[in-house]
């Protein structure tokens, strides 16, 4: 095999040479290493009559059941903005991408949207995992990502705007509500992924401060519906309240098992942070009487809400009901419009500068929200709703004012400073 091995050797040698040539890039510790974000030149085309925006939602796979609606509402918002003249007189031309419930796909599509389609900003994502997949890519390419779902906080990025609630706008109001009801024992039930795990870590810290005892904590994989074993544990623990951070269709199994075990809102009510008007119908009457903590409810009485509901009901592919993540997605596009118009440019750095320069506001269906230019979150009202027989929510509690976003819980003394420091250090 003389000739083969000779050829092999030649191949190995030449590929090694190629690698050496390619590998002359930056190494760890080089000064250029830090360059990262500003290195990528933007290819956004602002010369035409339109501006390209990217929508990135899971249209297939497990999360499609939630994200399709967000995608549709983004389309509606774009249509509305276009009908009223567009952004800086440019019509929105959106590129819809499918994240396919696959986090690497989210990363890939983000890169595609930014470098191939040259969109000015990306809107979408649902799960925290998808956001965490997008984050390094938008930071690397200095893009913009608008994320519309409540999440676990403890994060901020110059390249991400969060229009859903952070913990102090959803979890903490929910805990305050529980405290006001005199709850003494609490059971935590969640899906096994980053949001419930982190949220529950925070809940445990705050519960200690409030004097609420955590009597149990259960996690089930996202794609599993069967909660019977865990609900049996809950029934045995007899908590005053159940804090539910389950996501997706697993909620249906949880509610059914809860109902079956003879647990009732009268004795063992649930407070959820992932069941909204969209999800509740799939649980029928068995969920009635339980609570949810959101910033927006369809039943909210504000000046802007009726129009939002009306437009959505008339929109093709509408689900007929509005919900918090939908509303946050709706806000995100309008917020971007306000930001760009304040900056007078689509340039990412100028948009970020405009966010810091003066408070950007938007008359959202949940009320007038204000953007915090430093942490890129928005102020939100806290609401607790109770599910009625129509699978709508009766509002039973509201925060006395709009809650300023505080993703790192800096205004809360029960959140240990050393942990916060660890987190900010680790986030780099």
């Amino acid at each position, binding site marked *: 095999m003389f000739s083969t091995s000779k050829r092999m050797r030649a191949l190995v040698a030449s590929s090694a040479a190629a690698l050496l040539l390619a590998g002359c890039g930056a190494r760890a510790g080089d000064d250029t290493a830090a360059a990262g974000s500003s290195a990528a030149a933007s290819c956004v085309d602002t010369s035409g009559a339109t501006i390209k925006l990217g929508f990135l939602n899971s249209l297939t796979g497990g999360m499609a*059941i939630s994200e399709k609606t967000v995608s549709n509402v983004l389309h509606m918002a774009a249509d509305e903005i276009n009908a009223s003249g567009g952004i800086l007189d440019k019509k929105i031309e959106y590129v819809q991408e499918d994240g396919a419930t696959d986090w690497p796909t989210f990363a890939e599509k983000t890169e595609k949207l930014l470098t191939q389609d040259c969109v000015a900003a990306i809107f979408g994502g649902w799960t925290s995992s998808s956001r965490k997949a997008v984050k390094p890519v938008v930071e690397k390419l200095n893009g913009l990502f608008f994320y519309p779902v409540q999440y676990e906080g403890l994060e901020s990025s110059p390249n991400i705007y969060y229009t859903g609630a952070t913990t102090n706008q959803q979890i903490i109001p929910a805990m305050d509500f529980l405290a006001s009801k005199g709850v003494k024992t609490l059971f935590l039930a969640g899906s096994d992924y980053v949001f419930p795990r982190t949220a529950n870590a925070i809940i445990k810290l705050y519960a200690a401060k409030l004097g609420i005892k955590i009597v149990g904590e259960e*996690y089930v994989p996202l794609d599993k519906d069967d909660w*019977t074993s865990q609900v049996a544990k809950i*029934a045995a623990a007899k908590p005053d309240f159940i804090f539910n951070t389950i996501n997706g269709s697993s*909620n249906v*199994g949880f509610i059914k098992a809860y109902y*079956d*075990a003879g647990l009732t809102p009268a004795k063992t009510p649930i407070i959820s942070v992932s069941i909204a008007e969209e999800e509740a119908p*799939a649980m029928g*009457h068995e969920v009635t009487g339980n609570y949810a903590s959101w910033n927006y409810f369809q039943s909210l009485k504000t000046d802007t809400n009726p129009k939002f509901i009306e437009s959505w009901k008339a929109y093709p592919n509408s689900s007929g009901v509005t919900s918090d993540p939908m509303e946050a997605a709706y806000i995100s596009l309008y917020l971007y419009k306000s930001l760009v118009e304040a900056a007078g440019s689509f340039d990412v750095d100028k948009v970020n500068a405009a966010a810091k320069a003066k408070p950007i506001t938007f008359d959202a269906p949940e009320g007038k929200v204000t953007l915090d230019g430093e942490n890129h979150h928005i102020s939100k009202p806290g609401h607790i709703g109770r599910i009625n027989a129509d699978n709508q929510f009766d509002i039973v509690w509201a925060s006395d004012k709009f809650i300023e976003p505080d993703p790192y819980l800096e205004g809360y003394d029960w959140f240990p400073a050393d942990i916060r420091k660890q987190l900010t250090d680790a986030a780099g």
Partner: protein
Amino acid sequence: MAPLLNGSAQGALLLLAALGLSLTFGQMGVINMAHGEFLMIGAFSAYLVQQVISASDLSIPVALPVAFVVAGLFGLVLEVTIIRWMYRRPLDTLLVTVGVGLILQQAALQIFPSQGVPVEKPSWLDGQLTVLGYGWPLRQVFTILLASVCVAVLSAWLKYTSFGRRIRATVHNRDLAETAGISTRTVDRLTFFVGSGLAGVAGVAASLIGGTNSQMGAQYIIPAFLVVAAGGIGQLKGTIIAAWAVGVALAFFAYWTTGSLAQVLAFILVIVFLQLRPQGLFTVRTRSLV
């Protein structure tokens, strides 16, 4: 006590999902990865029946036979169009039906509301049965009863009807059965119809326990196959014991650890068991060579 009872119900659901497979996989050697989607079809059938008969007390009893027939017909179509060409390539049926499953899932996602649909349980399943101080949900009792009825009917059908005997004859020796005047084509079709129909029944039971949406079938398929494999190929008795054992193991693991870890442990348990006893709990002794 609670884990044992919960586990038995979980096992019963698993058994319902596995029963059809033990027919199509065990008796015919077809590896139908779309079985989970047939289960989903059963669940959606229950929802559709509920749209017609809104009283859920009545609609679920009606939905059971309807789901059986609808899922069975899907199975029949699959058999007639695709599976019939592949009896000599059992491993390839696995891949073909993966494709069928993908298509059915996507179709369901597009046809029905993406969030899934509610299937209301009949009010006569509200409440609990108190067993040694534990309030055992009636829905779980129902699942067990349903599984028992299906097992009883299926084994009686296989044992006492002429069609059942023909199925067994065909499984035993296809060529001989043909020589004896049995239309093996008809037998194949009917077996597949019944096997798929049982998935439909399992779907109705599943719709009462979890969500009814396009993704629901995926969580049952691998555990169901493991149950059939662990029970021993074509062994109804083995399938029953294996399903019950896996269900109870799941419940106890979930009781001792977390729901996530319970899934992993149950899987590992079955995999280790199959390593030790690859032929499953029960085997048919054959003299076949090579």
